């Protein structure tokens, strides 16, 4: 059984925990080697954009609607059909219920005969 496999395989969470601890320690060492001169709230922390004016926070943030734009554009037909099916009308929910009952009853009926 693969239950016991969970505790000994490379997928074991203890192993992964150790690995992440090692990675954290390494990250800490790299961080310690960084610049000491860095100070908060000075010119150093400002965003540098090739000398251009930095836009406001509102414009800088990419809104959720635009994330994965390409994915939705590629799958446009699938999404159009799907959103059309999600009408949000209660009556349609019951229609789906009836359709599913009809389909599965017929499947069981046919299997029972054959």
């Amino acid at each position, binding site marked *: 059984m693969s239950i016991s496999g969970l505790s000994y395989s490379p997928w074991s969470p203890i192993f992964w925990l150790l690995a992440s601890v090692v990675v954290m320690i390494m990250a800490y060492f790299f961080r310690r080697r960084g610049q000491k001169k860095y100070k908060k709230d000075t010119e150093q922390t400002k965003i540098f954009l090739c000398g251009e004016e930095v836009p406001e926070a509102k414009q800088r943030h990419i809104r959720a609607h635009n994330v994965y734009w390409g994915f939705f554009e590629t799958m446009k037909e699938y999404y159009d059909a799907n*959103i059309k099916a*999600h*009408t*949000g*009308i*209660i*009556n349609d929910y*019951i*229609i789906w219920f*009836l359709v599913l009952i009809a389909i599965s009853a017929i499947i069981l009926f046919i299997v029972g005969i054959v």
Partner: protein
Amino acid sequence: MTQGIPFNVPFLAVAALIGIAFYIIVSQRNLIKLVMGLSILASGVNLFLITLGYREGGVAPIYTHAPAGIMVLPVPQALTLTSIVIAVACLALMLSMVVHIYRHTGSTDSEKSRIMKG
């Protein structure tokens, strides 16, 4: 099977009632009519339960002043009583929600009053 009512007419009535109820539920866009359809559906199922317990020529299962003879089954009557009260409770809650929907959107049409989709 031979004497009495032929062809299980009460069960056919149950089928007709449930069919009508589902037709109302899926085709009527008015939310009040939808709730009425659900009420008819509940009545159909209750009728089904109560017809299950009938015995030919039976009397009510109460011994007080009972005439001699067989009695009909008591359990379906109890189940029907329970399910009637449940249907009433659902009906009250549904109607109050419809009232709220009408207050907020000014319509009881299930297509016009919907806000969420997709």
